[in-house]
């Protein structure tokens, strides 16, 4: 757990002090990723760097795992915090192994233990230890270097990590890969992480919580879905962009809004039954055909069912698309647009049909919590 208590930084310049961070108070629960988000110069990096005293706070306190850090030696404090920066900052004079074991060596670990730890971490970041441990940083690609940067921060197994735009200098394709890898790693490691970003999409993808900064002040601190649904003021709203409802599609799983009421027919049933069931469930165009183990095998179109006699098994078309319950609404929307359909059958891990998701259900779910500040202000004014 990281707790910031009225953390303040005033930079002294030629013409007076500049307030870079103004009484920042927030708590990041253990095992969560908190993204500090905002335009440049908003105080997010200053806030991050005050935690490991790269920037000395003017006032305020930092608690890590409930312990006040102001009494700790700067070096001890930093060795217990993993630190990853945008420029990576691997030491060019050291091999990858020496880079990764930098903190353990500072802590006085034995050689053998350091060596084992380095191999272990190379597995965690999915790089071949035999191939890379004895190379130098300049022999690695940018993405590989940043993976090593993360490994170095994890080396002494600190409970807390600070990351300053760690993936900002990596090209978009590699960035997505390394973000996914990092999230997978985090699921097992459960570190408490503060993560600076200026990229709203990265924040939504990576963050359990998002803190929005503006001009040195913490404006809003919420979970991503709350943030996108209900921004506190116009600044936050404009920062999130005018497609913020669409951004929420990434955060909601199909399983959250799946409706178990889905009408299906079996291969052995007649087209007459299929037509009746379409009417019963209100399907305009077609109905899903499933086999005996409830797996989707085709669609029976209404146009066929209403004019032909016979069994469903002889008159079906391929299924245009199905969606897994663990997929995001974003993928569901994309499939619907691509296939020109307003609903999709949902399947579970066993490949069995477990319900359906409709455009209506999606818009209702997203719209139920959507709040517009301009509309809220207008409503408040009309009341007054």
């Amino acid at each position, binding site marked *: 757990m990281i707790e910031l208590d009225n953390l303040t930084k005033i930079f002294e310049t030629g013409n007076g002090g500049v307030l870079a961070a103004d009484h920042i108070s927030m708590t990041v629960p253990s095992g969560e990723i908190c993204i500090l988000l905002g335009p440049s110069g908003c105080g997010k990096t200053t806030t991050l760097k005050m935690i*490991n005293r*790269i920037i000395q706070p003017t006032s305020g306190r930092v608690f890590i795992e409930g312990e006040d850090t102001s009494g700790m030696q*700067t*070096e*001890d*404090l*930093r*060795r*217990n915090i993993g*630190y990853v*920066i*945008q*420029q*990576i*900052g*691997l*030491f*060019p*004079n*050291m*091999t990858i192994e020496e880079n990764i074991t*930098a*903190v353990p060596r*500072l802590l006085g670990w034995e050689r053998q233990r350091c060596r084992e730890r380095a191999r272990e971490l190379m597995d965690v970041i999915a790089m071949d230890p035999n191939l890379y441990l004895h190379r*130098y*940083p*300049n*022999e690695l690609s940018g993405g590989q270097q940043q993976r090593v940067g993360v490994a*170095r*921060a994890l080396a002494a197994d600190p409970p807390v990590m*600070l990351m300053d735009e760690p993936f900002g200098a990596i090209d978009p394709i590699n960035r997505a890969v390394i973000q996914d890898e990092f999230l997978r790693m985090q699921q097992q490691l459960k570190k408490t992480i503060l993560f600076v970003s200026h990229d709203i999409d990265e924040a939504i993808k990576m963050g359990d919580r998002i803190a929005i900064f503006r001009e040195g002040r913490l404006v809003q601190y919420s979970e991503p879905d709350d943030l996108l649904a209900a921004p506190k003021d116009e600044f936050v709203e404009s920062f999130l962009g005018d497609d913020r409802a669409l951004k929420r599609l990434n955060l909601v799983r199909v399983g959250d809004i799946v409706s178990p009421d889905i009408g299906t027919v079996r291969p052995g049933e007649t087209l007459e039954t299929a037509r009746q069931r379409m009417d019963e469930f209100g399907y305009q165009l077609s109905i899903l055909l499933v086999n005996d183990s409830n797996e989707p095998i085709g669609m029976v179109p209404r146009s066929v069912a209403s004019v032909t006699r016979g069994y469903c098994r002889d008159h079906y078309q391929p299924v245009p698309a199905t969606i897994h319950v663990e997929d995001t609404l974003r993928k569901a929307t994309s499939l619907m647009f691509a296939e020109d359909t307003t609903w999709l059958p949902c399947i579970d891990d066993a490949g069995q049909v477990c319900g359906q998701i409709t455009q209506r259900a999606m818009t209702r779910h997203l719209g139920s919590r959507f709040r517009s500040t301009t509309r809220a202000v207008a409503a408040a004014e009309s009341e007054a």
Partner: protein
Amino acid sequence: MLANMLQRFGRFLVLAAVFAAGAWTYSTGFIDDFLWHWPDVQYLTVQHIWLTAMSGSLAIAVGIPLGIVLSRPSMQRVAESVMQVLNVGTTIPTLAVLALSMSFLGIGTVPAVFALFVATLLPITRNTFAGLKGISPALMEAAAGIGMSPVQRLFKVELPNALYVIFAGIRTALTINVGTVPLAFLIGAGGLGELIFTGIDLFDPAMMLAGAIPTALLAIAVDALIAVIAFLVVPRGVNPTLA
């Protein structure tokens, strides 16, 4: 194909020229004159190397720590002024420095070593300072961020990463030093300058060359030696020629 032939022809031409020059100098008796000075050359070369070694190691011993001290953030204000003072040591012609040094310290080895030290100090200090200042702030932040103390940062990160530039400074400084030592003869410190200046005065080209050629070879040898040491000492990841 044509380039290859030209290259081979060129090589042949060089060989032929060297052979012709050798034959000509031998026929004029020049080589015999030269060899007549051989015992002097041996003795003076050792003296020459001593002067370089003393003034050079003194300059390294003072220049590197000075460069380190000046590169500390707390010294930021005075660093440039100190550099300017050192610059004077190089700007003033070495002959003048020798003269000044002689007027305070008399004649002999001591004033010569001192003057050579002054002339050699700047490149070493300047390169140490520049090498340490040139380390990227991100690297320094990373080193601080993982919990290195200032001393650990200096020895584990800053110096290893500045070594290539520091060695470049030492190389320049010592090569200049070897080439300047002949002037030390003028204030009675010996060295190969003895043969060069006496040869000039007596209009004896063989004697002059008996001093000049070893001096030139010595400069090349010192340059090569430092290059080899640098190659062995500078970490592989820092050496730009290996990247």
